[in-house]
């Protein structure tokens, strides 16, 4: 497929796709080198390329929304791509806030996979949702932001559990010296969960506003509501328990991993097979 033979819109689309994929891939490679060598400049370049990828990814989402006259979460493509973008954005925020780059190499593959997989996702012809407007857009965007923040805390918890295990069995290898300290991983995970909790709380509240408005068309007993409330409760529990005597440390991280499995269930099984009004968010 030659770029010159495409329509102007498609050309922009392909250019943005390639630029974003390359920026994320290079960022991943630089984070990997940073983890292996500890070169600060490589880490900074990784962050810079991640930021560049975020910008081009944003324009890719924008361009597609304009082209289809729809929001980016209306189909599987948009939903996955938006999830990848918010995951990268949350990670970048966390990296800058905690000044810690070692986890980038573990997050970037997810971002890249979601971004590329979105392009490979089959097109669907679902009718647009009844709800629309800024409050609905915010409901969906915040929900996806929450999922991405929870995904990030999941990755951080896995790293915590792995590092904690290696420290306990005294098998440090090369990587442990490069990973963030356990307490920092714990703090990063809690920060990420906090972002997720705030987003999902506001997002869910906005969602219930729409339930109220469309109550003549939709049931209040959509399983999505129940599982979202369960997710909310589980993460509140994690947030509370993570600093208590019995749960502090590895147990809290295990709970965080378990919580994300419920999120995954909500995002996949519940959305695709059980929910009436939620498909891709």
């Amino acid at each position, binding site marked *: 497929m030659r770029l010159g033979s495409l329509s102007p819109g498609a050309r922009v689309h392909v250019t943005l796709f390639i630029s974003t994929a390359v920026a994320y891939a290079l960022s991943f490679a630089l984070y990997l080198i940073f983890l292996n*060598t*500890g*070169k*600060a400049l490589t880490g900074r370049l990784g962050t810079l390329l991640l930021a560049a990828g975020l910008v081009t990814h944003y324009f890719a989402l924008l361009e597609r929304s304009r082209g289809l006259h729809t929001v980016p979460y209306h189909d599987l493509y948009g939903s996955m791509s938006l999830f990848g973008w918010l995951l990268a954005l949350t990670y970048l925020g966390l990296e800058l806030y905690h000044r810690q780059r070692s986890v980038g190499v573990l997050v970037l593959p997810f971002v890249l996979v979601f971004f590329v997989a979105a392009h490979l996702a089959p097109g669907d012809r679902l009718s647009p949702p009844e709800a629309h407007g800024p409050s609905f857009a915010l409901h969906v965007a915040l929900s996806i932001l929450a999922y991405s923040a929870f995904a990030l805390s999941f990755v951080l918890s896995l790293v915590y559990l792995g*590092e904690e295990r290696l*420290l*306990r069995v*005294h098998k*440090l290898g*090369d990587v*442990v*010296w490069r*990973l*963030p*300290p*356990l*307490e*920092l991983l714990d703090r990063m995970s809690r920060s990420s969960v906090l972002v997720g909790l705030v987003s999902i709380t506001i997002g869910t509240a906005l969602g219930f506003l729409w339930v109220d408005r469309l109550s003549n068309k939709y049931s209040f007993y959509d399983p999505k509501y129940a599982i979202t409330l369960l997710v909310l409760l589980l993460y509140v529990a994690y947030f509370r328990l993570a600093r*208590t*005597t*019995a749960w*502090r*440390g*590895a*147990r809290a991280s295990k709970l965080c991993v378990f919580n994300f499995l419920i999120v995954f269930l909500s995002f996949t099984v519940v959305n695709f097979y059980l929910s009436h009004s939620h498909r891709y968010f």
Partner: protein
Amino acid sequence: MEIVLVGLNHRTAPVEVRERVSFTADQARRASEELRSKGILEETLVLSTCNRSEVYGVPPETSRECASGLSTFLSEFHSVRLEVLNGSLYHHYDREAVRHLFRVAAGLDSMMLGEAEILGQVREAYRVAHEQGATGPVLNRLFQGALEVGKRVRSETELGTRPTSVASAGVKLAERIFGKLDHRSALVLGAGAISEQVIAQLRDRGIARLYVTNRSRERADSLAKQYAGEVLPWGEWEKALPMPDVIVSSVAAEEVVLRREIVEQAMQQRANRALFLMDLGLPRNIDAGVGKLYNVYLYNIDDLTEIVAQNRHARENEIPKADSIVEEHVGRFLSWQASVELVGLINELRTKMREERAQFIRARVESIKHLTEADRACVEKMMDDLLEGLLLEPAQRLRGEKDLRRKIHNVEALRHLFLSNREKP
């Protein structure tokens, strides 16, 4: 513009010789002054650490001749017989001297491979010599290069990153759990040599509060005073156990000092906040079962020794990478040195040719009677242009082509070939 280095280090001299030839800061200043006032060196710098004493310099004559003068100077300065020194001193010139200094700054020549302190010592020696006015363009460039090599090796290789002593490995492990130690506290049981090493490392890494306890209160007092810690009476440290995040035990005891039940109780009281324990005693001071408690990390002397061995091995693997950085900078320095020398040589050649031209005109052109003043001026101008043209291309190539400068190894030989009857300026 040769560089000469004469010195000794931990590899060439035993400690009893090293300590006799080491320089205090004042002695280093005085030696620099004497070396220049006696005309042994034009530029000079003395680098003296606990493991090495080295004099770097730029001699007025050829370096090989001045090396023996430097040895004699060292012998006289420290009142050590020359025969004692001769077996221990090494002499390096030009490329080898540059390479040696760059390897020293990189930590490749240190007793503890990749140690960080040496770079600070090189920086300090250079600062002192520079302030004293003992260095000139060559040593300034050389030592700035050495500092750059030291920084690059530390940032681009893992030569200095991994701890290679039991004490530093233990403290670095604590940082793997807690991150920065600046708001953490540590309790050290025992006040022997190993405890002191750990305390020094903890202080170096910024531990916020330090408690020391020992059977002999006097020794604990002395350590606490030296490292700004607090002393806990030997009988009362168990009560303080919930407080510290790091516990180090190095007590000579036949029985376990820290039992599992005590630590378990302390963990309850500290709400299961992570606890890192270093058992450096032999026999072990801490019940091995403590390591199984939730959020407790226990490392004994064997665990730490194994980590140190792994780290030493990892450091050794970094040597080729560090050496390639050293070689790159040696090449850069020699290229700069050659460019300075060659540009000087070209300028001398130009001066010589102008003198030859003036002589030639006096001898030949002035004998041609029919030439007017204007004709003579024109011939002089043409000869000037010809000579300038002959020198211009090589001068430009020498400025622009690094490889060419590297290929010209011996500027002195060129000088001898073209300017054999001229004094070196």
